[in-house]
């Protein structure tokens, strides 16, 4: 059974033209290469001080 109140929550306001800039910024999602880069940077920063968790060598 359709619950009007619940269904209405699915509908969100759409951006107006003057909010397009914000929509573009919101659209800047992270893809898989961004995630890999973040992970790589973390590993690199860890390796600078301590031993690398992957290789075990001192960076």
């Amino acid at each position, binding site marked *: *059974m*359709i619950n*009007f109140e619940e*269904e*209405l929550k*699915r*509908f969100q*306001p*759409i*951006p*107006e*033209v*003057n*909010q*397009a800039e914000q*929509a*573009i910024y*919101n*659209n*800047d*999602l*992270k*893809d*898989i*290469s*961004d995630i*890999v*880069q973040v992970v*790589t940077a973390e590993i*690199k920063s860890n390796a600078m001080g301590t031993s690398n968790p992957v290789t075990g060598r001192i960076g």
Partner: protein
Amino acid sequence: MSSKKPVVCPVCGAQIRKSGYCSNCYMHISIIKKAYNTSDYYYNMGLDKAIARDLSGAIESLNMSLRYNKKNIMTRNLLGLIYYEMGEVVMALSHWVMSVNYKSSGNLATKYLKELRSNPTTLADVDQIAIKYNMALDYAKRDDIDLAIIQLKNLLSKNGHFVKGYLLLALLYIHFGNYEKARVTLRRVLKIDKANPLAIHYLHEMGDTDMNIIQMRMEEVEDDGLLEEEYIEENVIRRNNSLMDEDPSDKKSNPIKDFFEKCKNTLFKKKVAGDISFAKYSGVYVLVGMVLGVLMLGFIIVPAQRKSLRKENERIIKTYSEEIAAKESTITSLDAQVSDLNRQIARLESNNSDDVNPLPDYTYITNGMTDEDIQNMINNE
């Protein structure tokens, strides 16, 4: 001697080392290639769905494609085009702008943006549509359904491809219990986006089967009259009438409404969610109508007629009784007069019989006498 062109990292543009890792971002080229291949795979899937007019499915696939490669220009452009087709121009703009940002030359998005910018009226209309939709949504949330419907009709007459507007309109019609109009509205959605999950969900909830939905996609929507003024007026009038009929004091319980609901639930309880084809039950309606007619005749009309007849009889009897009483009183008074006169007659007769020395008869004396003789005689007496 041949100079080998260095391999460049597609992510950051730095040189790839012999080991296959990027010298800047330290990503392995095979991972990047794999990610980009997967992105293209989802793009192709999205394109197939878009060609089949499964726009919601295409958006899903293209978003997945962007998860693997956010710089996939083709994906961005197609996503923008799909949003534009579904009436969400601002979303389309944002994807095209991103696309142009990643690749400025030889990009189809440049053409799209140029076309949009060249016509300020279109952008103004887009803005108006967004404002009106948000306003309609606000009205709907505040339970001003009539105003919400009017706003949605208005914006849909300007942009007949605004899927979100149709979906909200359909939901409002369902809320009103106007399933036919909801179906007409959802049919328009299915014409634009064949497998819109929300539209199909609403149709299933209204009791439509998958076969009905397939049939619905084939039907023409141009002459369905959805955006005609009558629809708005009819709806508003119906709503207002229903509001006027409702007594605020009886808001909590309306026995007639409750009875109708009870009957509806009893008669049509096999249906899940209001898919009541009233035409199918015309025979039942006729039967119920006849029974109600007979009951009304027996319990209301006949007793009322009897009561009125009894009252009429009583009134006639009362009139005649009064007339009879008046005549009886007249007769009594006349009887009294008769008896009085009779008594007078009897008394006079008795007086006559009691008189033993009547007056002397002078006729024989007066015979042959003159008037002068009679006068003299009276004088002498």
